[in-house]
């Protein structure tokens, strides 16, 4: 079984986001970038399945500018066998990304595609579901547990009401929740080995798809700030303030 895992390079989750003064976006220059956190869970899960002898090959794919390749290199260090970097410039919408991955799926013919449930930059939560629609494959989104069966997966999904379990026939798409597993760190020897693993570079123009953005970002601004609060000295003062000042009790 072959697993394709999609990874995205985003601003590191610990970085305090700053909005550009001209309203054109957020500051990304000289800002620490990392792999989108749930994409790390996607890679980890694929590697675990391979270690359990249920997968034979893991291909990591990213779509984006030159530096996006770092995320593929990291996936290789954790256990992916080969990488694919589809080179693009400028704004990419989830619909465009899913069309690009669809092309790669047609070429690589994986049995499963894993990715994070949401990217923490645009917070869209779309790509997995869109890819699944384009391929007409089953989808299991927000996965917190995956059991590999003969020709299917049994997936536990985190939903608002609690948990849901679905069985999806292979080939299928899974989008991963942070609770799916604990991503490992790459060891130094594996980081060195990963440098020798192949990364295929593909120019998006060679795929013959239209990735022109459909949504214009007119303005990016800071959210309204909360006015500074106060520290209370003790619990009695807290309850008194909530009762008489905030009037919420």
């Amino acid at each position, binding site marked *: 079984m072959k697993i394709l895992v999609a990874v995205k390079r985003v601003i590191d989750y610990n970085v305090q986001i700053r909005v550009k003064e001209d309203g054109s976006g957020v500051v990304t220059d000289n800002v620490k970038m990392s792999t989108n956190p749930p994409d790390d869970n996607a890679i980890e899960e694929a590697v675990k399945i391979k270690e359990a002898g249920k997968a034979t090959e893991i291909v990591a794919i990213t779509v984006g500018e030159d530096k996006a390749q770092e995320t593929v290199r990291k996936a290789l260090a954790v256990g992916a066998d080969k990488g694919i970097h589809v080179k693009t410039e400028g704004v990419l919408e989830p619909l465009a990304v899913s069309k690009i991955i669809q092309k790669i799926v047609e070429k690589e013919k994986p049995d499963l595609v894993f990715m994070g*449930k949401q990217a923490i*930059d645009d917070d869209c939560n779309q790509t997995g579901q869109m890819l699944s629609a384009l391929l007409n494959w089953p989808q299991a989104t927000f996965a917190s547990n995956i059991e590999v069966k003969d020709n299917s997966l049994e997936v536990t999904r985190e*939903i608002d009401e609690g948990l849901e379990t679905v069985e999806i026939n292979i080939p299928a798409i899974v989008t991963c929740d942070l609770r799916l597993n604990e991503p490992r760190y790459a060891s130094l020897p594996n980081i060195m080995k990963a440098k020798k693993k192949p990364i295929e570079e593909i120019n998006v123009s060679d795929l013959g798809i239209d990735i022109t953005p459909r949504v214009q970002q007119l303005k*990016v601004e800071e959210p309204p700030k909360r006015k500074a609060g106060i520290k209370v000295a003790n619990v009695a003062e807290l309850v008194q303030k*909530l009762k008489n000042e905030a009037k919420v009790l």
Partner: protein
Amino acid sequence: MSVLLIAEHNNKDLRPFTLNAATAASQIDTDVHAVIIGQNSETAAKKLSELSVVKKVISIEAPHYENFTAENFAPAIVKLAENYSHIVCSANTFGKNLMPRVAAHLDTSQVSDIIKVISPDTFLRPIYAGNAFATVKTNDLKKCITIRPTSFEPCESSGGTATIEKGEAVEEFSNTKFIKREEVKSDRPELGTARIVVSGGRGMQSGDNFKLITEVADKLGAAIGASRAAVDAGYISNDHQVGQTGKVVVPDLYIAIGISGAIQHLAGMKESKVIVAINKDGEAPIFSVADYGLEADLFEAIPQFMEELNKLNTIQK
């Protein structure tokens, strides 16, 4: 053209956020039609037809719609789409799972999780866990929009007299099989719509200690929330998680106990009207959004808090 609202329901009742999504839909265009897809869902369809802003209901029933799988729902919605300029539903796990599948079939770039309708093609949405707001304009002919339910008031649940039409079911998608749903039943208010939320974090130190949170919540008639750290540590189940990848809540009062306030948690609660933080680390980031901060050991503060609450004659519920 009209707006198509996708109703979320459990075959008996509408899920509450359908009412918030209906409000958002009506701000895009007053001609709101609502589709309800399910099995034996007549009562829910009836309730949908009574929503003040809904002009027409389309009810689609089939056995394979009983469990709301996106693979089954999407083609049925796509079939209706030609009559509509917009398709709208909530950005909760139901809508997040479903809408991108609809959008991809329609070759439309979805706009997720909007918090404001600026015009029928322009919307405000949070990005980077709410650390920035983006104004976006979609140029797609058909617009697929998910709305952040807590940013729109629920519409009136009565007063509407929409007609209910039968819609056509689409063939079953056989490669996905629903197995089970484990819903956490509770008499408490729903986390997403509660007036008061009491949340615990890693500072609670154990699942057992979470009963302190339960006591406060019982006293206040509140819903129980949690940080991701607390859910990951197994103190409480995932349906309580508040944050960027959990639920977004906007209660009148949010009480964060033993929660440090990671960016990702703040994303889910910082629009609350009044925020209280109880934490023994005075430097914890949660204090930066708290209206009232109490720097204290929560294991001393919670019993005192209960005592003070007991002294109050009345507590609003």
